[in-house]
């Protein structure tokens, strides 16, 4: 039982590290270019990486909107063949709605998903550079 549990934990860690490594290798400008790739492909990139960002506690959020809401709204717009994305969200228990052009929302959700994981990976090398008495000289 212990071995199974250990193997599962190890498996999950490897899968997690794998996604971070995959994201780190990407050129965000290229993979999230909606004109070159189409909104559906760009959304697929966001759908692949954003759940990992949530799991690691590094998901991006802007003006009260979590990236997972962009993913959901873009997916709904593509299914409904609409050029406008409608995002419903809550700020301090108040319901709000924002509308964005599809291309913009798809680009945003993709860059947020990939960049969150890239930043997470970069932090391993960069965080000490800001510590006084360690990497930060004054």
């Amino acid at each position: 039982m212990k071995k199974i549990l250990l193997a599962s934990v190890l498996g999950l860690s490897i899968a997690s590290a794998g996604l971070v490594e995959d994201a780190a290798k990407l050129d965000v400008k290229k993979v999230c270019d909606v004109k070159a790739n189409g909104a559906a492909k760009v959304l697929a990139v966001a759908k692949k990486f954003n759940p990992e960002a949530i799991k690691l506690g590094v998901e991006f959020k802007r003006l009260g909107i979590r990236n997972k809401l962009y993913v959901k709204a873009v997916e709904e717009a593509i299914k409904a063949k609409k050029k406008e994305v409608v995002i419903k969200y809550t700020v301090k228990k108040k319901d709000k709605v924002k509308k964005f052009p599809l291309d913009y929302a798809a680009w945003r959700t993709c860059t947020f998903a990939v960049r969150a994981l890239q930043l997470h990976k970069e932090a391993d090398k960069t965080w000490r550079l800001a510590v006084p008495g360690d990497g930060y000289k004054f």
Partner: protein
Amino acid sequence: MKKKIIASLLLGSFALLSANSFSTQADKDRKALQAYFEKKFADRKNASTYFPYSTKDELDNNFKWGIKGDEFRLGSYAFDKGGRAQHDEMMDMPPFEDNIDNGKELYEKTPGMKKCFPNPAIAGDYPKFVKGKGVVTISDAIVSCAKDNKQKGWKLTKGKTADLEAYFANASKEKGKKINVVINSKEAAAAYERGKKEYYTQRGYLELSCATCHVQGAGQRVRNDILSPLFGHTTHFPVYRLKWQGLGTLERRIKGCNKNQGETPHKPGSTWTKELIYFMGYMSNGLPVDGPDIRK
């Protein structure tokens, strides 16, 4: 008998040595941080290095220079003369006085509270690392105590918890207590290190770390506010914020900061938040407890 005494002494010394050895790195970090801030605010001559965007007028007239040690308990008001003047005016009639009174009443009337906290002057002793539980902040300890005694409506961020914390902080301040966060085990040292890493990690779509504003950025202006320093941050909580129009805990403030970084904020009771507070608390070790206080 002699043997027993010697054995106890040896055991005691070993325990003391061990406790010290667990905090060796943290002590180095705290000393370096203090040295950094004292150098940064030592002299007008350093201004071009540390405050490249500040105007000559700000540097000549609004900055107080030559700040040392305990003065940092005041946060940005240690060096921001304009902010300090406004703060002192508000302190003529502190808006949190009712919160302290309410906290005292809650302490006396809430079942089990006196048993959980026999001495109210304990604000400087938190957060603590408890084996099996991990980091326990003062808000955690209060909410857990209330829950254990079947009390409802206690949050980690504001309300009754913040009021009781205000009473504890005030009692600690009156008794001249200092921040005294302890790292007493390998696990505690690991929690401290994780908190430290998170503090210095860039996060969110703005790619800001906590340190961007509160270490390297401390003293610089964001819109019309002067950023406060990490050294001394935890001394004055809970704070009455004008933005909140009420009192809030350190957990509440951190949630706001985390949101401002452009990240989905971590929950106030999460391990992430607790370990961050553990690191921040240790960085203010030795400074006098100065809460509750007012902030913008």
